[in-house]
């Protein structure tokens, strides 16, 4: 009886992590729908646990959420303090030694992925540097913005390298038979893949942007180097980036911006004479992860086990609060579909998540059977432990938008630009400083909360 109690307590402790995490995510969502950014900031800061003295974070994911929320609140310096502290965590994750990852693997074998440290995705890392650069632009620190754009560009290069390498590796594995893998795992994988296939965890329609780039980040990189060009090599950088975005997104805004950059390079126009306004629109909230539990026809399953099943993360799209933003007569176009980027990366990572979950289930089920053979009551407890500890990792950087849109228009003669999010909403008048180029940054997280507008003159 004592043993059964221990097992139950252990199970509850293990299940606690993921449940608390989801509860906090729910609280954050509610605050955002109510437009209560300050409440959301308090929650995110508390969960992130940034040490004031060492600038070390205790939770990376909440650090990113806090960085985003502080940015929404126009507290750019504080936002960058959070984003900066994430660089350290990302470096640690990247350079994590074999011992540490083995330790984590052992840990996750008896529990689940949701209990491990948050593993940053490639799109996370690109967006951390992108937001940092945008924050620096907002506070007028162009030197540091340049550094962050160079970083985001480097992160993009690393992402392309990683996925190219990964795809090659998978091809090699498919071609050569790996006899070292246990027969049970292989059989179970084959069987479970059939079941998994019925649940549409990934889709053939999910395709990455060419070269796994995040074209929004590349677009803003190009725009920055164009509007802050110190020399010809900066203009070359701008043209390179804008060229890629124009080819990939086929948008008017990227083609027009590219044309402006080319004219600057030819010397047929100059920055002071451009008089343009770029309107950038962050629309809605990115695709999120939800848990789907399925019972599996595991090869090893016998009558002597109380529970076996797997829990996997599945992507769920959220509706866009707005179609686009109208700037006078011009509509913004999508220059970066965050959902598409997340789906493509998830599709690449899913086989690993699945294999890990199945091997974990196999180990747990074998243990459960062995315990059950010796003591049926304890076996039941082990079954309970397994059932509760089977949980999917559904953590995502939920503050990312569904998509990034942009438009470019002439600076208004009267210094006022009118933005409209559709007939149901009141138009927003924005003051544009005369005689300068400007970026108007608009973020609309939900249809219920007021959009946040920031004007940056360059």
């Amino acid at each position, binding site marked *: 009886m004592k043993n059964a109690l221990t097992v139950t307590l252990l199970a509850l402790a293990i299940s606690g992590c993921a449940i608390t995490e989801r509860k906090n995510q729910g609280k954050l969502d509610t605050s955002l729908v109510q437009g209560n950014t300050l409440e959301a900031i308090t929650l995110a800061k508390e969960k992130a646990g940034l040490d004031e003295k060492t600038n070390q974070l205790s939770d990376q994911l909440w650090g990113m959420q806090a960085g985003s929320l502080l940015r929404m609140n126009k507290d750019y310096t504080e936002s960058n303090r959070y984003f900066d502290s994430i*660089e350290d965590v*990302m*470096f640690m994750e*990247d*350079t994590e*030694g074999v*011992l*540490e990852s*083995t*330790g984590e693997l*052992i*840990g996750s*074998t*008896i529990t689940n992925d949701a209990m491990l440290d948050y593993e940053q995705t490639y799109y996370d890392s690109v967006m951390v540097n992108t937001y940092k650069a945008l924050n620096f632009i907002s506070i007028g620190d162009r*030197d*540091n913005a*340049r*550094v962050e754009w*160079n*970083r985001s560009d*480097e*992160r993009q*290069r*690393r992402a392309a*390298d990683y996925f190219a*390498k990964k795809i090659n590796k998978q091809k090699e594995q498919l071609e050569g038979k790996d006899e070292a893998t246990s027969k049970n795992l292989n059989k179970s994988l084959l069987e479970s893949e059939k079941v998994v296939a019925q649940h549409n965890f990934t889709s053939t329609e999910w395709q990455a942007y060419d070269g796994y780039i995040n074209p929004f980040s590349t677009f803003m990189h190009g725009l920055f180097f164009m509007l802050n060009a*110190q*020399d010809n*090599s900066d203009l070359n950088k701008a043209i390179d980036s804008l060229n890629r975005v124009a080819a990939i997104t086929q948008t008017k805004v990227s083609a027009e911006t590219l044309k402006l950059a080319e004219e600057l390079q030819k010397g047929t126009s100059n920055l002071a004479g451009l008089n343009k306004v770029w309107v950038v629109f962050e629309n809605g909230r990115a695709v999120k992860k939800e848990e789907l539990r399925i019972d599996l026809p595991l090869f090893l399953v016998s009558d002597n086990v109380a529970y076996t099943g797997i829990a996997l993360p599945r992507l769920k799209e959220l509706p866009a609060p707005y179609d686009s933003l109208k700037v006078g007569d011009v509509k913004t176009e999508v220059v970066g579909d965050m959902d598409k980027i997340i789906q493509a990366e998830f599709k690449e990572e899913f086989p690993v998540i699945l294999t890990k979950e199945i091997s974990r289930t196999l180990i747990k089920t074998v*243990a459960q059977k*062995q315990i059950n053979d010796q003591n049926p009551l304890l076996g039941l407890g082990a079954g309970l432990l397994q059932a509760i500890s089977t949980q999917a990792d559904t953590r995502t950087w939920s503050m990312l938008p569904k998509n990034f849109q942009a438009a470019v228009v002439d600076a208004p003669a009267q210094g006022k630009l009118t933005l409209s999010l559709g007939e149901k909403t009141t138009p927003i008048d924005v003051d544009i400083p005369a005689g300068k180029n400007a970026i108007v940054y608009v973020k609309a997280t939900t249809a219920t909360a007021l959009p946040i507008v920031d004007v940056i003159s360059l």
Partner: protein
Amino acid sequence: MKNKILTATLIGATLMSGCQSTSYVPKDSKEIVTMGLSHRDFDDAANQALNEIIASPLLVHPQAAQGGRYIMAISNVVNDTAQRIDTDQLTKKIRVGLLQSGKFITTTAIGLNGAEDEMTAKVRELQNSKLVNQATVKQNGTVISPDFSLSGKIIQRTNKIDRSSQLVDYYFQLTLTQLETGLAYWEGEYPISKRGSNDSVTW
């Protein structure tokens, strides 16, 4: 089974938590090399630049023997790397060396984004002060305009070599422009290459 897992986890945890102590690194030590730019890289680039500027026949003041010195203003050194660098570190080293060589004097009253030391302008505000002995107040029209301007750029190029290593090339580019004619009287480029692990980013 459970005990084994627990033991393995504990051993793992113990091995992971190493301990580190603080120690001095000798100035010219080549033991510690970072993928990012360090003090040594700035020193190397600045020393090379200094030697070249001092040796350049174009940069000899006509009255050098009588104590004639060129005046140099510090313009912009663009940091186009992925690291947060204080570019003053580079120019400072060059300024100090040039001053010691007796070829250039740097003006702190004139800079691209205003004066480096605003005191030169500030003390002239004392011209109406009843408190200050007016004979000691610095007069207008005495600040010397620069003859040369030092500008530059630090560039970073990162390339993957193979699965585990990457090559980072840094270029220190510096230019001395003669302000009368707008001509670059001296230019220097100092590349530094570092090879290291491809596990993470270079900053």
